Each structure stands twice: as structure tokens, then as C-alpha cells.
């Protein structure tokens, strides 16, 4: 399966198992979503469990909260992560805070799916990676898969989770493990082992990172598309890098991070989002707080620039394998 099919399968499995699972969002019903992630679900589960909504992201989140309070488990799609901002208040002030403010009486077990990241010439409003904002909001979990197997397993975990989960889907990975070499064709997921996705129910737990490549020289903390870029960069820099796919940003898997950096003594953090106050800052602070005495060189951040995502210059913005490799080399210097 590619990632779109894996996500579709996760929703399919959960809708079949649990009558309380409903799916809605802009264009997700008859049409099956602009990225086709919900294709066939309306036909299979009916219009009152899978439906199109008005274009009002705040309305989508608000009704999802109300449904969650009733006892449903809504999965909502925000067409692009860039369009989640109108829903900020409903997310921050309500979904994230409901359990706390009602001391557990009312909850919002919502999964918010949103395609994120660039690389499709989407310009500043179809390319953003806003994860850092959600990680600052207590009460929200934030998840970003990097491959179809994880995508399905994590999405099922997110749907089953009793807390609101922001589930960001790196749209550049929908069809294959894009490693930043935009000049080359992408191999399809069918040729990748993580494209082997079971049909049925399984979970990949939230809060657990995955060491996608073991190494001794330097630790790379990455998630989403950047996992594949980091893999390419490590190979190209000929470094024995240990690459960690965080998968869940909150709660982050601190043990795996600390174990790795304690071992390697060096750390490079990679993300596509703008740098200042990106999630890389939190990771850097955590590594520094927990591994200070192991660190042999400064923790490096390789990230998107602090500019909007530019249309024609997107490959100059994107932290591709060359820039990541440079970061790795820098981390090896001191």
C-alpha cells in the first residue's frame, strides 16, 4: 500500500470495528478527499458516518468536539495543514482543555488529519509544517508518520486514543519515500518494505520513536519526510549516523533520544518547518538538558528557513540531503 491507501485502510478498519467512528471534512465524502484518503468510505459506511462539510475549519473542529462529548470518535480532515489556523481556538481552548477543565467528565477523542509539508510547488499556503504550535499546547498529542506501515498503525492508535490527536501527514510521502532528491523519480512504496501493510487491525503505539538506522557517530532526530532525507544524507556523507524517526512529537520518546545521544555524543535535528521556535528548539533543549555531559559538539538544527515557503524556490527552502549532510559534517567537526 502507499500511504494514502494505508490511511484509508486505517479508517476503514476502525469504522468497521466501531460504530462511533465518523469521518468528515471538506470534500471527503462522495469525492473521497482531494488526496483520495477517504475514497470509498462514504459508499461503504453511509452518508451519516462519512460526509462533506462546509468550508469552516473551526466549525469542523467545533462539531467534532460536540460529537466527542456525545460519545462519538470523529476523524476530521483539514484539507491542508495550512488551513488549520481558523480552528486554533477550538483546538487550543476547547479540544485540548476539555478533559482538564471538566476534571475528566467531558473529553474530545478527536483525530485531526492534515496533510503537511512542501515539495509539491504549493507555495506558502500548501506547504507548511505547523507542528510546533500544537506541541506547545498542553492537552494535544502530535503525530507525524514517515511511511505507510507506521501511518496506518499510528492512525489507528490515534483514533483509539481518548485524547485529541493532531495527525500530520507529509503529503510528499503519500506516494513514495521521498528523500529530497527532487531531481530523481521517487520509488513507489510498493518497492519499500514499509509499503507492506497488513489489511487488518494493528497499532503502532503513540509516544514511541523508531530507530530507523543504527549508528555510532551521530544521532539524527527527524520525523516525516525528513527521515528519508536524513537517511540519504547519512549515506551520502558516509557517516555512521543513528537516525531516529520520532513519529510522535508529544509525548516525545525521551528514552530513545537520550539513549542514542548518550551513545553518539552528537546530535543533529532536522525538520522542514521554519527554525525559530520550531519543534527542533524543544528537541535541542531536551537533548541538552538530558545529555549535557555526553555532548561532544553543539547540537545542530537543519530546518526550513524563517521565511514563508516560496513557490519557485521551494528546493532552496527545503532542507534537502545536501544541507543535512553539511549539518552532519558540522556535528562531527568539533
Amino acid at each position: 500500500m502507499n500511504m494514502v491507501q494505508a490511511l484509508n485502510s486505517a479508517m476503514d478498519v476502525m469504522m468497521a470495528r466501531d460504530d462511533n467512528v465518523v469521518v468528515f471534512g471538506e470534500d471527503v465524502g462522495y469525492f473521497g478527499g482531494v488526496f483520495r484518503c477517504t475514497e470509498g468510505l462514504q459508499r461503504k459506511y453511509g452518508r451519516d458516518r462519512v460526509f462533506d462539510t462546509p468550508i469552516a475549519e473551526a466549525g469542523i473542529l467545533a462539531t467534532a468536539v460536540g460529537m466527542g462529548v456525545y460519545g462519538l470518535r470523529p476523524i476530521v480532515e483539514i484539507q491542508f495543514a495550512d488551513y488549520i489556523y481558523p480552528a486554533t481556538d477550538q483546538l487550543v481552548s476547547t479540544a485540548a482543555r476539555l478533559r482538564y477543565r471538566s476534571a475528566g467528565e467531558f473529553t474530545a477523542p478527536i483525530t485531526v488529519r492534515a496533510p503537511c509539508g512542501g515539495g509539491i510547488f504549493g507555495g506558502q499556503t500548501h506547504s507548511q509544517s505547523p507542528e510546533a504550535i500544537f506541541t506547545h499546547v498542553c492537552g494535544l498529542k502530535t503525530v507525524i508518520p514517515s511511511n505507510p506501515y507506521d501511518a496506518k498503525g499510528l492512525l489507528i492508535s490515534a483514533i483509539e486514543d481518548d485524547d485529541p490527536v493532531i495527525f500530520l501527514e507529509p503529503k510528499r510521502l503519500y506516494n513514495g519515500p521521498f528523500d529530497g532528491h527532487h531531481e530523481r523519480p521517487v520509488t513507489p512504496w510498493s518497492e519499500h518494505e514499509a509499503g507492506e501493510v497488513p489489511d487488518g487491525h494493528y497499532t503502532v503505539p503513540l509516544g514511541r520513536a523508531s530507530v530507523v538506522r543504527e549508528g555510532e557517530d551521530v544521532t539524527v532526530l527527524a520525523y516525516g519526510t525528513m527521515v528519508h532525507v536524513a537517511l540519504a544524507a547519512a549515506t551520502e556523507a558516509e557517516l555512521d549516523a543513528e537516525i531516529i524517526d520520532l513519529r510522535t512529537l508529544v509525548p516525545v520518546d525521551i528514552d530513545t533520544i537520550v539513549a542514542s545521544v548518550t551513545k553518539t555524543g552528537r546530535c543533529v535535528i532536522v525538520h522542514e518547518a521554519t527554525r525559530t521556535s520550531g519543534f527542533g528548539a524543544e528537541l535541542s533543549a531536551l537533548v541538552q538538558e538530558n545529555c549535557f555531559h555526553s555532548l561532544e559538539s553543539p547540537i545542530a538544527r537543519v530546518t526550513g528557513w524563517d521565511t514563508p515557503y516560496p513557490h519557485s524556490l521551494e528546493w532552496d527552502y527545503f532542507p534537502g540531503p545536501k544541507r543535512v549532510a553539511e549539518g552532519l559534517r558540522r556535528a562531527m567537526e568539533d
Partner: protein
Amino acid sequence: MKNTIPLQLHVPEPPARPGQAPDFSWLQIPEAGSVPRPDTATEPQEMRPLAYTLIRVLDEAGAAVGPWNPRLDPETLRRGLRTMMLTRAYDERMFRAQRQGKTSFYMRCTGEEAIGVAQAMALDDRDMIFPTYRQQSILIARGWPLVDMMNQVFSNTQDRLKGRQMPIMYSSKQASFFSIAGNLATQFPQAVGWAMASAIKHDDRIAAGFIGEGATAEGDFHHALTFASVYGAPVILNIVNNQYAISSFQGIAGGEHSTFAARALGYGLPALRVDGNDFLAVYAATRWAADRARSNRGATVIEHFSYRATAHSTSDDPSKYRPAEEAALWPLGDPITRLRAHLTALGEWSDERQAQLSTEVDNEVQQAQREAESYGTLGTGEHHSPATMFDDVFKEMPWHLRRQRQELGF
């Protein structure tokens, strides 16, 4: 080609400011009983005038008149009166408690008691309420213990919300009363979502959302009406127009050129505009809207036209922005006085019974307060352990919160 008049910004001003005499000349009050009551099966577009008038049942003499008269029995009326009086007594006590330093903040609903009480009585107790901060009367009408409410106001050791929430931000799943939000308007589209869920599950429970006229300006209001209209959600969307949003008169919210009820029409939703100080009118309107919702005819918007008789909250001083006498002279009167007059006119009430009831509710509140204070007040500082501060952020506490709790010494 162009007209050469220089453009001008229009900034609405209230009819009167402090130092001026209250001015109610802009108010159009139809006679009680004069507004027709269409069948609930009527198409919304045939009922548009109901958004521009005022449904009133109680006339000046205290008689219940016209097609909206819900013909309630005296027992029900007395229960309504008692609940409104209990609410007011509760408010007065809690207001004083705040002034005495027993808590940080309080908000009264004085003058607006009929809205919550009559609506609660006209609904089923299992119908879900998404309130604002001025519907404490609904909890009281549903028989929720005053002690429990006070525990919340005092943030004491028995506060079910563990002292986390500001006073008056009640929450009771058991009473089908949604957790009150600090961020205005958020609950309004949530009520629609809850109602949609009830429809998805072929349930028979409906929802009722509340919003102040000031907060209708938030996008959430628009989302609520849009989604309610699109999906035919079984929900009552109540707008409480108490003329003020803190210091801003309702013209600043967009009430100068239209009614708030009329907002509904553009979405194809029916709207009722009712005298919110008329217990019977609110009751009747609620029943009408609930009937529509329960028979899959969808949502109704109700504007409750009322007046915020006291300050916005204990942090507010209305004499800074409106004439001091405006409240007392409000042409639609006081809901308690009016229902009492009705019962009296019916021969079902007397000054003695009134005095007795007054003492009774005072005692009830006083007794509850004594109990609640025995669990502590914010002023005296008995509260839940700081360790509880880290609970309920998530269902299970993740490592970083566990570590932070340790940092705090727990």
C-alpha cells in the same frame, strides 16, 4: 462619475450614557398575546416575521394571553417562581461571598432568571445544555445541589473540578450541562455537533446552546448556524440579548439595524424573538423549538430579549458606562415580579406565600453555603493538592508531566 460626498465612519452610540436619563424610545414592544403561533410544521420562510417581533404571553395585568400561552398548571408555575428566586438568592449570596474575599470572582444572572429556568423546565432533563456563564439557573432548575456549585465557586476541597476553573465555570455531565468555556461562543457550534451526533445515533435527545448577543459576533456563531442548517441538527440555538456585552451596548454587536433573531433567516432557519423576562413566553418558545427538533425539522434560533440588571461581573462597574437607573426602569420588568403577579392574578399566590418562599430559598442557600464553606473557600485556602494539577491534561500522564510533578515535589 463619483459622488463627491466625503465618506464617514458610523460608530453606534447607545441611547443614553451616565448622567443622561435612560431612553427607551427605540424599543418596540408588541402587546402580549398579539404574535401568532404557527404550527411547528410550517416552512421557515413563512415565519420570518417572528424574528422581528417579540413573543409575549404575560400582559400588564399579569394575565397569560394569546396563542403562545403554554397553559401551565399552578404547580409548575410555582416551581418556576421558586427556581428563579432560588437562583437570585444564590447569586446574591455568592456575590457577597466574593466581596468577603471567599472567592476571586462571581457573575450574576439577575434579571435573566426566566430564560434558564423556563427553558430547563420545558426541556427534558436528558437534553444536553451548552451554556454560557449566565445559565446557572439551568443547573438549579435541574435540581443540581447548590453545595456542589458553591464548592466550585470556592475552589475548595470538594470542588469536583479540583479548583482548576474560575468560579462559575460549572460542569456536570450528570445534569447534562456542558463545561462552561472561558472563550466566548465556542460552545455554540459544539452544541450543534452534539445534536448531529444524537441524530447520527438516531437518539431522541436534543441539544440547547446559549450565547450572549455580544458573542454572536464571533465566527463560532456563524459556524453553528451554518452547520445546524446544512445538517438539520436537532438543536435550540438561544441568543440571550441582555443589551450589554461588558460596557458595549447591543448596537456594537450589530443590533442597530436588525434583531439578533433575524441572523437565522439567511440560513433558512426559523427564529423566534421572545420577551426573555416573561417566563411563559420563554417556556412556550422552547417547547415549540424542541418539538421541531424532535420531529426532525431541525434547529430553531431563539433570541431572548432581556436586560442585564446588574454588573457584568464582580470586576465590573456599570455606572461607568450606562445610566444608573436604566436597570430599574427597564420597560419589560423583572421576570420574578412578573411571574409572581401572574400567580397572584390567578389566585394561586399571596404576599404571605411570597414572603415564606423568600425565607425558604434564603435558608436553603444559607445552609448550602455553610456546608460548602466547611470544605474551604479560596480565601481560606483549603484546596486540592497541587499534585492534582498534573492530572487530566491527558487521560494517562506522560513522562514529561510526571517529571514536572516531581520537580514540584510530588
